[in-house]
């Protein structure tokens, strides 16, 4: 894989997105990491982006389905089946 010019290069950013979202094959991932291995700016950018993704997932407020709603869904399905 061709080494990126800098951490703002669109090709590099595209690869960062694919890597952090787990869509690269093992071979692609290894080649990409090897290509930026000695580029501190790119390595830092990758780390920042990985952290951003984890940050969103951990901080996002999650809503849960109430027991009342679950009960109502089950009842409606039973009615629907009859």
């Amino acid at each position, binding site marked *: 894989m061709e080494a990126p010019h800098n951490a*703002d290069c669109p090709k590099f950013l595209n690869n960062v997105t694919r890597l952090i979202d787990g*869509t690269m094959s093992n071979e692609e991932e290894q080649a990409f990491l090897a290509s930026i291995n000695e580029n501190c700016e790119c390595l830092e950018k990758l780390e920042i982006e990985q952290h951003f993704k984890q940050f969103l997932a951990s901080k996002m407020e999650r809503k849960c*389905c109430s027991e009342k709603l679950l009960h109502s869904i089950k009842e409606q399905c039973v009615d629907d*089946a009859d």
Partner: protein
Amino acid sequence: MAKLNSQDRERIFNSEFLPHADALYNFAFHLTYREDMAEDLVQDTFLKAFRFVDSYQLGTNAKAWLFRILKNSFINDYRKKSKQPNKVDFEDFITYQDSDEASHVGHLDLRQEIFQDMMGDEITKAINDLPVDFRTVILLCDVEGFTYEEISKIVDIPIGTVRSRLHRARNLLKEKLKGYAQAMGYKTEKS
């Protein structure tokens, strides 16, 4: 396709569909911002899933199948009702964002300790303020952990569009969070 008997239908419904109720409700809530609409949307999704359980292939990805049903119900039945006047539609938005594919939003380094104190409310608000099509891919990818391929099937867009939409959505979020951090007096740009 063979018709399932009622016991099989109930078993599949309870073991393969219902475990995803919380994830579906969370997605529905962040699409509509309203608890009553989210409840209706989840209820509609499960009823449709139950009615069409014969077309569900056992052992395949039930969660993605349910999310696709919910997304379609939202588009067809709920989107107009939930649309807020201050929200920007994706199609309107994209016309002036399209040339900005490789845009870079400076450095927002959330590794800094100060951001760890940022409230979940602010993150949730920033995500909820995104146009719905951007919000959808962030929720599906970063919150629910779907792959690009699964998101592509759920949302009915090519995989390349999933990736570019995620890229834009994350950049928008960084802008919003950077604005928030700066308003709070935190330094966010690398010197």
